[in-house]
């Protein structure tokens, strides 16, 4: 019976995937690391990567507009919101691309459908699909492992390829004595013992301080991103990760500098800086993409917030970028340029950015990209984005 279970677990890929991350994944080819950060709720690209130089900006965002002097201007048109100022360091080092007027390929203002499209990597919401990050793991070659750093398994990583997960829990931390006794019990189970050992290894990797486990939610992005870096940086650690941050559905009182949205942006930027710091030398091979399911209305609503819109902004960070750039075929904010008279018009497909970023991170062929993103012929890899 034990032998049979042992073989069974081999078939599941259990031993391969769930063995100690730092031991089992001795890297041969040294693939890069790729992190997909989903901002759930539809974050306001126009309040993050602010088109302060657009002639219509002040009138469209009436009573709700930044002065260019309050922003970290990157060119004549775009500036980073005050909360995102820490990202200036990435920009100056050629490690930040800002995609704008970007949207998923399917027109929807539903969080549900929008996230389904973004995470499945398809061109319309099909509930039964697997996630594009999981398909990435299925098609790429060499040693690889995926991990969800999230409270649940995000759709993006769901699928046939066995992935790990780590989440900051709100429960108390298990004390060592209990954990050791539990480990002794698990050692007697041929199928589960490797998985339990891997769990302990992962916990030790993250460490007691900042010990995001139990505190990450309250401390926000910094603790979470630090914990993520500790999991991802060891040689042979997981090299595809999905993360998520929520709170971006700013229907009311989103504010300007120091307001609710800007504080969230600040946490995000500080989290990204903390991530890079914690990654140390491993940052050199890391690419990180930040995206959301849709942008928000160009005009503010009646409650000093914005409603669900269409195109928005996203980021690509990392040394594998060719240079810092703004990736946008900017449609402008003039009334007749808005999508359905209300939203920033989409001129860039999220999949074009995602394809480019993963291709740059892992040297994928066009055929592999097509399997990860079916029906994406119109979303071409962007020349010159990645080195």
């Amino acid at each position: 019976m034990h032998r049979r279970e042992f073989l069974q677990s081999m078939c599941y890929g259990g031993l391969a995937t769930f063995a100690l991350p730092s031991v089992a994944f001795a890297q041969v080819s040294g693939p890069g690391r790729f992190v997909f950060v989903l901002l759930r709720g539809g974050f306001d690209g126009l309040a993050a990567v602010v088109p302060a130089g657009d002639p219509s900006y002040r009138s469209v965002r009436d009573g709700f507009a930044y002065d260019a002097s309050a922003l970290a201007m990157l060119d004549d048109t775009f500036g980073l919101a005050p909360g995102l100022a820490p990202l200036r360091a990435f920009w100056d080092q050629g490690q930040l691309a800002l995609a704008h007027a970007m949207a998923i390929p399917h027109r929807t203002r539903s969080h549900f459908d929008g996230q389904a499209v973004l995470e499945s990597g398809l061109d319309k919401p099909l509930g039964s699909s697997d996630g594009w990050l999981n398909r990435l793991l299925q098609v790429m070659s060499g040693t690889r492992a995926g991990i969800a750093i999230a409270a649940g398994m995000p759709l993006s990583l769901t699928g046939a390829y066995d992935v790990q997960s780590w989440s900051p829990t709100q429960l108390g931390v298990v004390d060592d004595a209990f954990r050791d006794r539990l480990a002794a019990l698990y050692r007697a189970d041929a199928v589960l013992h490797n998985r339990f050992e891997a769990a302990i290894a992962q916990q030790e990797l993250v460490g007691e301080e900042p010990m995001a486990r139990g505190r990450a939610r309250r401390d926000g992005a910094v603790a979470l991103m630090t914990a993520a870096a500790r999991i991802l940086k060891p040689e042979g650690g997981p090299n595809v990760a999905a993360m998520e941050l929520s709170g971006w559905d700013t229907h009311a009182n989103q504010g300007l500098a120091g307001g609710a949205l800007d504080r969230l942006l600040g946490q995000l930027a500080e989290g990204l800086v903390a991530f890079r710091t914690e990654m140390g030398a491993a940052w050199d091979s890391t690419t990180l993409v930040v995206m959301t399911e849709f942008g928000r209305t160009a005009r503010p609503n009646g409650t000093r917030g914005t409603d669900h819109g269409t195109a928005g902004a996203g980021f690509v960070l990392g040394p594998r970028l060719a240079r810092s750039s703004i990736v946008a075929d900017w449609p402008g904010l003039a009334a007749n340029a808005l999508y359905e008279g209300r939203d920033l018009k989409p001129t860039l497909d999220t999949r074009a950015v995602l394809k480019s970023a993963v291709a740059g991170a892992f040297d994928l062929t066009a055929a592999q990209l097509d399997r990860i993103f079916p029906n994406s012929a119109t979303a071409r890899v962007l020349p010159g984005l990645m080195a």
Partner: protein
Amino acid sequence: MDAALRALNRFGLGARVGEARRLSDPRGWLRAQLRGDAPSVTPPAGADPETVGDAVRGLRQLGQGDEAERRQARRRLQEIAGAELRHAVTERVTSDRPFVERLVAFWSNHLCVSIGGKVLVAPLAGGYERDVIRPHVLGRFEDMVLASARHPAMLAYLDNFQSIGPASAAATLGQRAGRLRATPEQAAPRRGLNENYARELLELHTLGVDGGYTQQDVQELARMLTGWTIDGIPGPGARAAAGSRPRGRGGRQGGGPRAQAAAPDGPLRFVFREALHEPGAKTLLGTRYGEDGEDEAVRAIKTLCAHPSTARFVARKLVTHFVSDDPPQAAVDRVAQTFRTSGGNLKTVADVLIDLPEAWQDDRRKFRAPQDWLVAVLRALGTTDVRENVGPLLRQLRQPLWSPAAPKGYGDTLQEWADPDSLLNRGELARTIARIPGLRDLDPRSLLEVVDLPANAPLAAMLADSTIARDERLALALAGPAFQWR
């Protein structure tokens, strides 16, 4: 393998202390549970259909208005969902027909709705399980699927309630109205066919993804389903139908409209609106369906349920759940055969599951999915008091009730649930639960009775070790490997 424990844990929802000892005829115990109808349940306080209808309208009538009011209206819907959820888990924890409750959970997941994505679904999911799944869980598959197709929760979840036939009376009327408006911006957003439900009905509820249908079939089925919508909320359907005669032949589950929909009130109900229905004949899986209103989709659903692909697809899923992550083909064939010859009689199918020798084999263990694990924990501890925190606890375990990320529902294999983090999560949670004050009289050693322990497993010695705190020993039993299997 202990047959009594296999019956209690694999087919039931987890052994209680003392139960295995009393079970002299495990298969007979399971069969007895299938006699009679499935136990019916009443809605929890504050979740009667009228209240739910009012709560849903309360939110929808606010439109994009005041954010504080919207938040409050959303909170009401979540409160109803919370009460329903606690009610449903209590049923599973306290039931004396746990095999039937497992079947309810299985079919509820097979035809799942999810409260994760759409706020409209949140207050309806409990009623969906109660009124769609439960009454048919020992009845006929096609009745369950038809009830599901007509329930507001499913109509909302997979968007059929807003699907409009492109050549329907409502659509042609809307286009004329649109041309009269001054600018394109002022025109109402164009609505039309939504094929979401039709696709999942084929792919996930009946034939299966390889069941032999095409994109053309999806569209044709979607056309047949136009007009199947929700009565009781303002929406494109209700407006378009004003002036046309709603035709309801809903039958028991449908509860067709008794009067013209004016200002909507009362419970949310299924209605067939002719004005939204796509006229003309349709062709599904090579069969032509002449124009026949609501009956087109009724006939189509019955045909799909009786299709051999459906029997194979459903059988494979059942055998995966009750036998093994790697379902033996002989068992799948036998269940499929029973499904077909019985005309989708789910009681007969449940009976044959008990008879499968593979389900009782020593080496075919099934890993407990999180909901299974938590319910089994509460049953093992003899708790009947399911607290409000059961929702957050299930979320913590990554399997909140009625909240799968996709219409495919939750999986139930080792690969999906036995990730390292989850094992540790269960350890943490067991530690917390074992500290509940009401458990002071429970002898940790008694939990040896609820797990099928291999010889020489270290658990027995640990549970007898009085140098370890009593609550910690309880937690070790619940978080240890033996308890993770069913």
